[in-house]
């Protein structure tokens, strides 16, 4: 339903409308609101709590200038038992305690600027297992889905995911120009540029209430859709899906965040909502604090999709590879230095003579077309399965 409203928007735009970049003049408000993010594991697995401040919407992306709150953080049970969180720097704290799920807990934060914050009392929720993850290919692309089942404690669910995929450069090559040797050599594994891995960040928050379905059985909930031809499925694709059970308040919080992220600006879009959470400033309870802390367990499943499983998969060029060709002229050995020294071009296709062991020259191509490390890393992630 939401998606269709977006399509209405797109339709209206195509009819006559338009979407233009917008830069309103906003008073440079020095708003500095504490942001608390965390889903602390109650079974002892190390989990992170992140503290940060909101930044001006136009502030530059220089991460060195971002200031993080520092101070002391601990979880407190109703009986008064305290579980301090260890600081990892840059506002990040680690929590690693196995605590009883029956109790109620609250988080206390004492920042070095003299403020203190308390969360509401939170009851941990154990997240049910993910029953199944899978994918299905349709005409429009591939849909990744998940199946799970709620229970009497876990009714509201939040799913988030992280994507990683392997890809090849537009013109893969096993060679590289070695500036020290001033010649072209076969690339060793750690310097190869033809196959890389890329992580994608996304803002997607998928929320569902299991009691909407019979027996709280959430069957084939769509998690992600990859349109036909997308680069992500050209070699091998991996998605790590996290499932979190939430209480009602957390579900409301994430729903507001999702709405504030996804649903704004279309014709029938709801009004933006001010986001709050379950944490208050002790000194000034009206002061805004963003964040909803939850306690419980996170269930994760990883799914791999290889290109063999979804063939045929027409490959649609990514914009970075626009106009990529290997030039016709052969660069001979004596021309290597002048051709490849600057780094703008790399050897692409080797030219062999009959019975030669080494190539006699190369056809060259722009680096952006041959070097996948410009867009990813050539280091295979630890979890990669092949």
């Amino acid at each position, binding site marked *: 339903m939401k998606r269709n409203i977006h399509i209405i928007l797109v339709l209206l735009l195509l009819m006559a409308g338009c979407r233009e*970049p917008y830069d309103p003049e906003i008073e440079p408000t020095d708003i500095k609101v504490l942001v608390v993010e965390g889903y602390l594991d109650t079974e002892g697995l190390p989990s992170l709590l992140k503290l940060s401040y909101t930044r001006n919407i136009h502030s530059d992306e220089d991460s060195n200038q971002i200031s993080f709150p520092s101070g002391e953080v601990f979880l407190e049970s109703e009986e008064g038992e305290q579980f301090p969180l260890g600081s990892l720097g840059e506002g990040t704290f680690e929590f690693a305690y196995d605590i009883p799920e029956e109790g109620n807990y609250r988080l206390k934060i004492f920042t070095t600027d003299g403020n203190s914050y308390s969360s509401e009392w939170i009851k941990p929720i154990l997240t049910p297992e993910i029953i199944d993850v899978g994918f299905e290919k349709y005409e429009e692309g591939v849909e990744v889905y998940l199946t799970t089942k709620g229970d009497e404690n876990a009714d509201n669910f939040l799913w988030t995911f992280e994507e990683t995929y392997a890809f090849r450069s537009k013109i893969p090559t096993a060679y590289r120009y070695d500036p020290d040797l001033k010649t072209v050599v076969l690339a060793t594994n750690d310097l190869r540029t033809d196959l890389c891995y890329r992580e994608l960040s996304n803002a997607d928050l998928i929320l569902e209430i299991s009691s909407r379905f019979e027996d709280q059985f959430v069957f084939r909930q769509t998690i992600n859709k990859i349109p036909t031809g997308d680069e992500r499925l050209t070699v091998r694709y991996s998605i790590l899906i996290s499932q979190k059970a939430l209480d009602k308040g957390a579900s409301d919080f994430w729903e507001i965040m999702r709405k504030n992220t996804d649903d*704004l600006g279309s014709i029938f879009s709801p009004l933006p909502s001010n986001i709050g959470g379950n944490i208050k400033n002790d000194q000034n309870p009206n002061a805004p604090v963003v964040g909803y802390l939850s306690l419980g367990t996170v269930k994760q499943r990883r799914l791999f999709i290889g290109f063999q499983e979804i063939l045929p998969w027409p490959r649609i060029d990514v914009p970075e590879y626009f106009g990529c060709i290997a030039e016709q002229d052969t660069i001979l050995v004596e021309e290597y230095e002048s051709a490849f020294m600057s780094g703008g071009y790399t050897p692409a296709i080797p030219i062999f003579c009959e019975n030669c062991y080494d190539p006699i020259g190369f056809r060259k191509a722009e680096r952006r077309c041959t070097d996948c490390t410009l867009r990813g890393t050539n280091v295979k992630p630890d979890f990669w399965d092949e």
Partner: protein
Amino acid sequence: MKKIYFTLLILFISWNVQSQTNQTVRLTGMYLGMSFDAFVEKVQAETPYTFYYKKVDVADIQINLQVSDTEVRLVLDEVFLNTGLTYSIDRSNRIWVTKGSRLLIDFPSEYFNIQARQDLLANAGDSLGEFDKNKLFVIGKATDNPESSTATLSGVVTSIESGNPMNGAIVLEKIDFTQVATDRNGKYRLTLPKGRHTIWVQNIGGFQEQRQIDLKGDGVLNMSIEETILSLDEVIVSSGALSNINKLDMGVQSISIADVKRLPAVMGEVDVLRGVLTLPGVNTVGEATTGFNVRGGAADQNLILYGNSTIFNPTHAFGFFSAFNADVVSGVELYKGSIPVNYGGRLSSVLQVDPKYGRKDKIGGSGGIGIMTSRLSLEGPIDEKTTFILGGRTTYSDWALKFLEDEADFNDSKISFYDINANIQHEINDKNFIEFTGYISKDDFRFDPDTTYFYQNLNLSLGWRHFFNDHLEGRFTIGTDQYNFGIIGQDNPLNSFDYSFDINQLYMRADFESRRNESHILKYGIHAIQYSINPGINQPYGEESIVLLDELEEENAREISVYFGDEFTVNEKLSVSYGGRYMFYQLLGPLSINEYVEDAPITESNVIGEKTYERGKSVKTYHGPEFRISARYILDNRSSIKLGFNTMRQNIHLLSNSSAISPTDSWKLSDPYIKPQTGGQASVGYYRNLLNNKLEFSTEVYYRYMNNLLDYRSGAKIVLNHSVEQDVLNSKGKAYGVEFLLKKNTGVLKGTLAYTYARSLLKTSDEPNVEKINNGEFYSSNFDQPHHLVLVANYELSKRINTSLNLNYSTGRPITLPISKFDYAGSERVYFSERNAYRIPDYFRMDFSVNLEGNHKVKKLAHASWSFGVYNLLGRSNPYSVYYVPEGGKLRGYQLSIFAKPIPFITYNFRF
């Protein structure tokens, strides 16, 4: 250009001549490229004259003339200019055309007066149609009541074209400016000093007629006047000009369909609601919505009536077109200040769209063919006593989508709508009339094969009008109004759903109007509504679907109002209208209602139980009075002041979390926690006519307060919420403003200039609310647009070519902007400012249109016209909204405009 100049000249001449004598036969029409023979044939057909001439004398004459109510002699002078021909007219209306010298005939100087005297004895009831204006009617008998110096003139004003009574025509005597408007049966009653008078009669925005009378005693004068939309310019004291000053109601705006038709249209569709938006004090939050806001009120606070039927969704295609077919509408009135006592149930305004009934003379029709839509209507008599009108519209905008499919990713997209109106009027006898109006509309749209939206209006109403006697009229109406919408989602067979909402109201009303006494018009009546709402049901769709049935309990209520009002003419200068309504509202079982901790915020955690009510049991009762008071004091012939104070109550609320009316907004009845909205408005106005009534000026100042408005807490859920009371915030509102309107109704250049300064503010009330928006301070409502300027100018290049320009400026609407950002769940997220703390850029739009009329031959198959123009001539991209989206983890701001390009349109209209 020369022709235009000539036309103007003729107009000017006829104007002057007219003021000297009104008793000559006049000509109106276009004579383009005609031979003299053809001209003669036409003139002979339209006038009592007969021509005598030699064919050889006139062989070379070609006539290119356009005249408007011009004396025949002036026309002939022009025709024979430089031809060497001359003419003379004898007393038998024979015109002798001769070469060189004039044929000598005896031509008495008082010829026209004699003719008038000959007519003196004509029966006043005879209708000579257009020639009535030159006749002297003797009204009444001098012996009836000799001691009284005044007498009462009454009668019925009907349309020449259809024979139907004309509602709201102004009957006027110009010396003392005694005037009255006809009621909806075309009746008028005027008390005048005995003696000779010229009586003027004019319908709104239409043609003006005059009658010479000699009033000797009480009597009847029935008049037929033209209601043609083609207004041929004369020296006009328009009805509006008079009502501007004299009308008792304030804050009432009438628009004729002719006015609306002259406005530049979007996609060529004549749109009644767009006409309403040119009025001061009326604005809209965006272009893709015809939901409108009146004097700082929300869109659901407007009572939109077609006849007696309430239209719950007045738009098609999510707001691009209004639900009203202009061919079956006779007029539109918007009450925004003093709301007449016979209306109630909404807080802000009443938009009364008057249905049209069929003509009585013959079967006729009209229609239009545009780029996206077309319409057709048929009307006429069924038998002598019964008339009908049937109108329909449909769209074929699918082709536009098909065209887009190649470009974009729309498979199987579809937009379609239609509406049908059927109105029947039956005259049982001259004391009893039956009227039926029926309206049905349906919208269907989808943008991919997965999800289909639809909504539907159905309104039926049957009325009986009875005249108990000369002074008491009663109207009894029964009807039903229905509205429903639905969404069918088939994205995945397992999750396929069918969601629907519907509202039904059954109503009965009895309205009485009594004019027993000259200085009092009494109105009283009773109005009962039975509401029944299905607030939402979500069902599995298809056999595989595992979606669970989710249904909100049906809501039932009844609302009964009684009212009484009196329009009291204290003296010539002062009139007062006062009255009141008493509204009784009862929410009925079966219903289960949550119970909450008393004096605590209504939240899930404060639920202490649930109470179930059986069928027919009263769940909650609200009742209270509404007051309506207004007064007018005439300062002099040209100016008056008016005061008014109203209070209103509203038991039905639109739940909407978006700023525009969206197709999925549902209605909710007042319950123990969502209380009836109440409010009041006080206003003062000053009205003045300038430059011999050619310009009307008015200004009104108002202040409104509103209680129990609904705003929503952050993240409120509206669809299928079993405890919606937990997500709404009880709010107070206030609105104030000043409106200026300058209007020119006459001349080649017509138009209005309206400027409004207005504010509309909300505040979370002091009741225990779960959240206080902006810390409980007043904040701008979604439609708080302080400055609003509308200019509508109409220039008549000739009788056939009419151009219109429309300028629209308003302050950008308030918006909640992201002011800072933070990282959360792997992406950059936005943190929003206080509610409505910023504004989108100002809105400015210019539209232009040309209406091209066909020729004015009386006898031809169909009268056709073209209208074409450009909407948003400057192509300005007025932002509808601004928003931020994270793209690849970075935040980017965008502004969205709906009509960012000039949109040309063309429509062919016909009438037969």
